[in-house]
């Protein structure tokens, strides 16, 4: 079975400061890792993904994430937070060992960026 953990229900950061949203995973096979963002009353928007290759992946809106195989982590980062980044962030995983490309989501982390 595959699983995702987002240990923080909420992350608070001041505008202009760097932010990190944590994610760890467990899969059999090679992981496919994703970050999605959900704004109020909206669906999920795809931010970035790691399939293979460079461990540091860059995505939309200045976000990036680093795949760390030894720590089974895929933390989301941004060098300088904006108030408009305030939203709910989900980490998700599937794997080469998963039939039908099934995605498993973490519980979500609410990011609050204060002016």
């Amino acid at each position, binding site marked *: 079975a595959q699983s995702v953990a987002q240990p923080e229900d909420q992350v608070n950061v001041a505008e202009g400061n760097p932010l990190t949203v944590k994610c760890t995973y467990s899969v059999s096979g090679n992981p*496919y890792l*994703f970050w*999605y963002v959900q704004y109020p*009353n*909206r*669906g*999920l*928007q*795809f931010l970035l*993904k790691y*399939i293979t290759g460079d461990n540091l992946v860059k995505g939309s809106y200045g976000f990036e994430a680093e795949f760390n195989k030894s720590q089974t982590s895929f933390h989301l980062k941004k060098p300088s937070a904006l108030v408009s980044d305030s939203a709910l962030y*989900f980490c998700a995983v*599937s794997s080469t060992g998963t039939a*039908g*490309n*099934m*995605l498993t*989501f*973490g*519980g*979500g982390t609410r990011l609050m960026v204060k002016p």
Partner: protein
Amino acid sequence: SAVISQKPSRDICQRGTSLTIQCQVDSQVTMMFWYRQQPGQSLTLIATANQGSEATYESGFVIDKFPISRPNLTFSTLTVSNMSPEDSSIYLCSVMVAGGRDTQYFGPGTRLTVL
């Protein structure tokens, strides 16, 4: 990616009734999925909608409660049958496009409230 629309965007329904949610994509996609997001919770996969055949349901979800159709490569419906207040959730469809490297793209969701 793909442009995904869902109808209705929200609805308030009475206990015991049924609601059919539509998901329309602007291009042919390889796979379509239906998810449920209960209030304050993460996403849970209900089923994979298979074109021209019966959907594949995840543990805890049954066809009698959540019948799904997918008559072609761009359209699917999810029906929530004999609703109870516990069915109050956001229902999201997602798609995987050919050559999309395992990335799922989500529709805007349907917010269902059952009284």
